């Protein structure tokens, strides 16, 4: 008797839940397929993740970075906050804070295919932002990412070209 009373309420409840599950799955899969920053649906590899986390991101010296800059083979990535970036940055650099790095992966991958090297920098020898941005980019499969430790100060002291403004 109890089951007879409950089933007319329970059945529509389960049906409603199943509809939402199915719609969510459909939208999620389609959205992931069409978005540039989509991920491989079954491609998670814990082994690769551990390897990437243990991998040390190579550092580059100021002189090497400047030579590449002169040859126009490098894209500088300023990992600092937008205000510091607007106050001054390496000429031609783009501002990618670690939290936003994933959004740029599709654009940067195209540049990587064209042979560009990416150099992240921030301000101060202990600044973690350049490492964090570089790490996210590596996780996203961007090759040739290097870090210019204490990059902003070194670049500024050397008197190399800088720019101001948001772009």
């Amino acid at each position, binding site marked *: 008797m109890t089951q007879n009373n409950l089933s007319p309420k329970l059945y529509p409840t389960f049906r409603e839940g199943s509809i939402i599950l199915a719609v969510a799955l459909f939208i999620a*899969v389609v959205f992931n397929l069409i978005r540039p920053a*989509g991920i491989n649906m079954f491609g998670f590899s814990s082994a690769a*993740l551990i390897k990437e986390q243990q991998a040390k991101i190579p550092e580059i010296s100021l002189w090497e970075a400047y030579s590449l800059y002169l040859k126009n083979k490098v894209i500088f990535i300023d990992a600092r906050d937008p205000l510091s970036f607007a106050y001054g940055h390496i000429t031609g650099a783009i501002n990618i804070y670690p939290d936003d790095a994933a959004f740029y992966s599709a654009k940067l991958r195209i540049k990587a295919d064209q042979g560009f090297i990416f150099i992240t920098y921030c301000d101060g020898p202990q600044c973690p932002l350049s490492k964090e941005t570089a790490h996210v980019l590596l996780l996203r499969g961007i090759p040739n990412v290097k870090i210019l430790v204490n990059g902003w100060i070194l670049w500024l002291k050397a008197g190399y070209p800088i720019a101001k403004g948001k772009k």
Partner: protein
Amino acid sequence: MKLRNFPRPFIPLFALICRLTLAIIFFYAGVEKILHPQEFAVAIYNYQLLPDCVINLLAIFLPWLEVLIAASLVIGINTRGVSLLSALLFLIFATALTINLVRGLDISCGCFGASSGNISWFYLARDLSLFCMSVFVLIYDRGWRYFFA
């Protein structure tokens, strides 16, 4: 459009408040994860509960489920089914949290995307409160029509 039955009786009004609160929480959590699926996948992996092959799929699917639950809760369609799903989700989250708190793992909660804090008993209490709110909505929610004629 007229307001009726407002603010009494208390229980349907409280269910409405719970429903909208849950919707805001789900929406915020879902959008944060949709923006950063890779980071959310890593957060799921850190719980050490699922095999690799389902982690990315869950990282893609779960945020959209949360956003759809939020939308349904706000609009008031399929409320029973959605609040049941919501209760089940919070129960699953609470179980996963408990297992890792007992294990002593110091990992990111991943509750609101990559920038969430590390897991703690507070998060478990929060999940259980939200579970109770979902059950309350499941049982007592009367929809928008109850308040608007």
